[in-house]
């Protein structure tokens, strides 16, 4: 026995006796305790008490033995656990999709508020959402820069009222820019060059339907159209105006506007008609001037076909040209003798003199 073991006192042994009784001491401690209790009656008694308590606890029936002696509780626990595991393992119940179910339940409980909410929602959709969606749709996709020109429909032409025509600036190409104030279904200002088809269409309509428009408007239209008189539709409108417009100033302006197209047979016929039949001497003088101008050297080249494809080719052959000139001369000779207006007669005589040398050549 070691010195340490000999020196083990009752104070050291007492706390170990409980663990000795339940076999929780090391071999070394067990030997020390065994040695001590053989010589110490008090500690031996305490050890006997601890061992006795151990025996009592071991002998005493346990709660588990009495509370579940038949195993029913264990089976019940297993069954309940299996059910719980089934619940945990089961996939979540997929309810039928009920959109806005919470909203419907809430609305069912508050009918008055729900009605007001629906009205407000409808107003919001109508006034805000739909315009916003339309804007959103316009912005979708690739950006496109589209300038929508005002398309004048036939109905609009038939009902339009021209408030005024102005010429903002002269174009370098010789075709004037025009601004037309229209009052159709809505007030409309039409800006553009006379070469623009829409602009030309409006101006031509005014000239061809002169009875509906103011004479000043018709004059402005004729002024604008004179640079495009080689266009077939424009030319026809100008011829119509020259023959039928009620206002002699307009007829004169129409003849003037046809100056660039004077070599055309229809235009020349219109000029001759105006010369022979127009009641206004001023118109007849204007017709003389345009006819004489068209017979001057260098004038015919103005009617080159390439200038306007739609213009019928004015390519008079020598015979046709001579025949046309002969008609003009005869008409001038008649006007020189019979026109009631002295000025017309004088102007016709002057024109014959201008044409005369050409006849000689």
């Amino acid at each position, binding site marked *: 026995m070691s010195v340490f073991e000999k020196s083990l006192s009752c104070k050291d042994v007492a706390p170990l006796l409980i663990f000795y009784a339940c076999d929780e001491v090391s071999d070394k401690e067990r030997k020390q305790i065994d040695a001590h209790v053989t010589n110490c009656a008090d500690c031996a008694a305490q050890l006997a008490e601890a061992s006795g308590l151990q025996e009592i606890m071991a002998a005493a*029936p346990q709660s*588990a033995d009495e509370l579940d002696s038949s195993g029913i*509780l264990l089976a019940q626990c297993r069954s309940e656990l299996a059910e719980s595991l089934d619940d945990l393992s089961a996939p979540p119940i997929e309810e039928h999709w009920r959109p806005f179910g919470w909203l419907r339940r809430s609305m069912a409980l508050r009918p008055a508020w729900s009605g007001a909410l629906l009205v407000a929602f409808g107003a919001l959709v109508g006034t805000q959402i739909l315009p916003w969606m339309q804007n959103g749709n316009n912005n979708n996709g690739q950006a496109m820069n589209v300038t929508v020109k005002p398309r004048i429909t036939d109905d609009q032409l038939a009902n339009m009222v021209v408030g005024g025509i102005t010429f903002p600036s002269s174009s370098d190409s010789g075709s004037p820019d025009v601004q037309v104030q229209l009052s159709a279904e809505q007030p409309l200002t039409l800006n553009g060059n006379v070469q623009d088809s829409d602009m030309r269409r409006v101006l031509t309509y005014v000239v061809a339907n002169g009875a509906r428009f103011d004479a000043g408007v018709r004059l402005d239209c004729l002024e604008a159209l004179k640079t495009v008189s080689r266009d077939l539709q424009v030319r026809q409108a100008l011829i119509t105006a020259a023959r039928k417009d009620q206002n002699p100033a307009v007829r004169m302006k129409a003849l003037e506007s046809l100056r660039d197209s004077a070599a055309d047979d229809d235009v020349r016929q219109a000029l001759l008609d105006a010369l022979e039949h127009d009641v206004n001497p001023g118109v007849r003088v204007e017709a003389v001037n345009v006819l004489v101008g068209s017979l001057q050297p260098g004038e015919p080249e103005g009617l080159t076909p390439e200038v306007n494809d739609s213009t019928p080719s004015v390519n008079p052959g020598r015979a046709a040209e001579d025949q046309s000139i002969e008609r003009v001369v005869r008409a001038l000779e008649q006007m020189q003798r019979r026109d009631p207006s002295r000025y017309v007669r004088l102007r016709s005589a002057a024109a014959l003199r201008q044409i005369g040398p050409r006849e000689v050549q």
Partner: protein
Amino acid sequence: MPLPRWALALADDNGRSGSTDAALASVISLSHLDERALVAEAQTGSRTAFEELVRRYDRDVLRLALNLMKRPEDARDVYQEAFLKVYRNLHRFRFECSFYTWLYRIVTNVCLDHLRRRQARPEDQAPELNAGLHEEGITDFFERQREYRPTQDPERTLFGKEIKARIATAMERLSPRERIVFEMKHYQGLKLRAIGDVLGTTEETVKNSLFRATRKLRHELGGLR
């Protein structure tokens, strides 16, 4: 860890006639697996493997719960709560200790929660069912008859009932932790080191708890010998 090939092969061979046979073969094969393989299989999501684990340990778990809680309904709650925690957290088990230790750690924690709750609000709890103290309350005929089986020594029976009643009263004096330590030591037969592992504490702490519990019980049970 997946199932060993032999276990899977056994399941395949026996399961040729249908899914029921296959499941039965699987159970048979699982019963032969060691704890580690069984836990690994359960971690893969095998419900069968988990139930096999439950069957291996739930008897001891319920026994511990009954001895500690003294009430079948409380023990049943502990059983359910503990095994459901195990099921939910099994994927976190890293084999750093034995599954048994890990399981008992969960069970004792659940028991401690219940015991502390009971201590905090004793008025909400039903009285414990101690046969000795509440014998008059036993209404089931068979429950009553089993105490008087002719093979039992009547004197011993009466003595045992007196001891049980005294022990039950003495156990009430213990703290929840002392109660668990004493229960696991004397009725579950665990070593102090294992109890420390289960409770997540040191062996010395467990020793102190057992020492205090034993002194209290000795004081309460004095004169029983």
